[in-house]
């Protein structure tokens, strides 16, 4: 299978009282063409910085220390910004979390979509407007020929996120990043917007990176799952593997600490003790070791590499052992 996107050894740093500290540490992954990869983790794990790196939106004081990103085979981090601008929107585009701040509040939504279309094509105003109306229709906005002249404040959050999706799709990208795209929406609206993204991705053969802290969203709308913790990728596998038989103790603990309406209410939730380490205070060895109930001396001293264990990638010294234990239960 070809990869729409490949990330190799990406590391990012931020300044702190202790000098520059690493926030994303040697991150490597790919997004296979046409697949939906869910990236889950808690706040501060580095999900959004990953997304911003892919869009080359990393700005001072955050810095990319090393790494390569290949988009359709072309390396983009070393590319001149002028060249990359032709790819951003055309080859890769992104839906942001808050639709209200992603859009210009004093510009009609139509003008904002037309602007984006014309940036990526040679269409004149009336042609671009036609395309914009078609786009609005395709993202499920009723009466698109009338709503195109609305201002953002005249629309609900769910409708605005559809407008943002329309803009993201206006350059006909191949890779779509959705960064907590439905987190700000009500649950019924969220379900509809996610279903829409799913449908559009299938129709257009998009490769999707779905970034979310919501395990339910990831489970329902991804083919593969990547789990990040404290700037590291700790596990990656097919969605069924990760949710039915996770190996990494963090993945397992994260799933156990969820609180959806299927859990047993007679017992306390299995929460993870402590909290994720801050970037300037990351432990030596495995980043999860201070909170891990399976940690051994080696885990506190050495950094585990992401390795293949029974068809999935896990960064844990005790992966095989724990997998057997898990199966035995």
């Amino acid at each position, binding site marked *: 299978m070809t990869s729409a996107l490949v990330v190799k050894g990406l590391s990012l740093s931020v300044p702190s009282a202790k000098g520059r500290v690493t926030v994303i540490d040697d991150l490597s992954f790919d997004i296979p063409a046409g697949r939906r990869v869910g990236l889950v983790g808690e706040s501060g794990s580095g999900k959004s910085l990953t997304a911003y790196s892919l869009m080359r939106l990393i700005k001072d004081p955050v810095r990319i220390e090393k790494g390569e990103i290949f988009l359709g085979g072309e390396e983009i981090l070393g590319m001149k910004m002028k060249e990359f601008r032709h790819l951003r929107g055309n080859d890769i585009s992104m839906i942001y979390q808050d639709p209200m701040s992603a859009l210009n509040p004093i510009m009609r939504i139509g003008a904002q979509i037309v602007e984006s279309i014309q940036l990526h094509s040679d269409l004149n105003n009336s042609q671009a407007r036609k395309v914009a109306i078609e786009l609005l229709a395709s993202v499920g906005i009723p009466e698109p020929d009338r709503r195109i002249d609305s201002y953002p404040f005249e629309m609900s959050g769910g409708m605005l996120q559809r407008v943002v999706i329309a803009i993201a799709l206006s350059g006909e990208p191949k890779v779509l990043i959705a960064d907590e795209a439905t987190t700000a929406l009500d649950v019924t609206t969220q379900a509809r917007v996610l279903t829409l993204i799913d449908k559009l991705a299938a129709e257009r053969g998009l490769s999707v990176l779905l970034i979310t802290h919501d395990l339910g969203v990831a489970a329902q709308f991804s083919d593969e799952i990547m789990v990040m913790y404290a700037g590291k990728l700790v596990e990656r596998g097919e969605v069924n593997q990760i949710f039915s038989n996770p190996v990494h103790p963090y993945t397992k603990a994260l799933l156990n600490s969820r609180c959806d309406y299927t859990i047993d209410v007679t017992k306390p939730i299995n*929460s993870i003790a402590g909290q994720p380490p801050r970037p300037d205070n990351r432990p030596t060895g495995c980043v999860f070791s201070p909170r891990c109930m399976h940690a051994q001396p080696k885990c506190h001293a050495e950094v585990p590499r992401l390795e293949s264990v029974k068809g999935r990638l896990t960064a844990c010294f005790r992966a095989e052992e724990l997998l057997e234990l898990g199966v035995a239960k």
Partner: protein
Amino acid sequence: MATQTGSVANLSAVSRIFKGKTGTVHALDNISFDLKAGKTLALVGESGSGKTTAARVLLGLDQPNSGLIEVLGRNLGSLKYEELRLLRREIQVVQQDPFSQLNRRHSVERIVSSPLLAFDIGDKESRREQVIELLQAVGLEKEHLNRRPHELSGGQCQRVAIARALAVNPKIVVLDEAVSALDVSVRAQVLNLLREIQITRGLTYLFITHDLGVAHYMADEIAVMFRGRIVERGDRDDIFKKPRHHYTTGLLSSVPLASPTAEKRISEQDQSLPSPVADDSCNYRSRCAVGLGRDDCKSVPLQITQGSDTHSWLCHSPIERS
């Protein structure tokens, strides 16, 4: 410990109307509920359904246009300012944002002791002891006394806010989206803590959340709100196992479950959201698969159907359950 029976607060037929340039919004449209001693009532619903307005009128932070609110047998509408202030020893609140509800320039000690000061409880030394006890009760340490909010994580700030709410030993705590801003693993810790202190201190909770999973875990009783009305109310099993209102089932089926094999059941109803305008008939009908085609849903005023002692709903054509 509070007694296990009887109600400690109730709202009856409360309406709160906001008049604006674009029309009148019925934020609360004739709602009634009571809080039973030592129990948790969850208000669930989408943004704009009136959950927080209900909390505000219960706390006496907002006055209803009509209806009666009683807290510990006292009618809020008849209380003078000072009486209302004193009543706040009995009813406290924890809000959503862990950072903005704490004064960022104050130390944890000052934040947690401020209700004690406000009610002139104890002297400086005994207050300090009490604050340490409170911090320990919410899983923090003595060493946190001199920290300021920016030195704490979101989960720790929320624990400080809980400690502050407990300082005056209230009977009722209103938790308004108190765990919504927290990450999964930290949220689980705080939910466990809230359940624990409810039992040890005999607290009554009004738990406001948009998260059905959290409501399921925390609440003895759940009221589902839609545009200012309670459309269904029941205990945990009533709502999660035998929901009767179409909106409740719509909400439940919209929650993505962390299991890839879970069935996806997303209804494709109209998403238009007219503002909550008073109308005695059903205001959910434009989104309802059943009500859209029925005349009575459009024209016949709704009345509460009491299906059992615990379970009631507001619907002409509820989902049939045997």
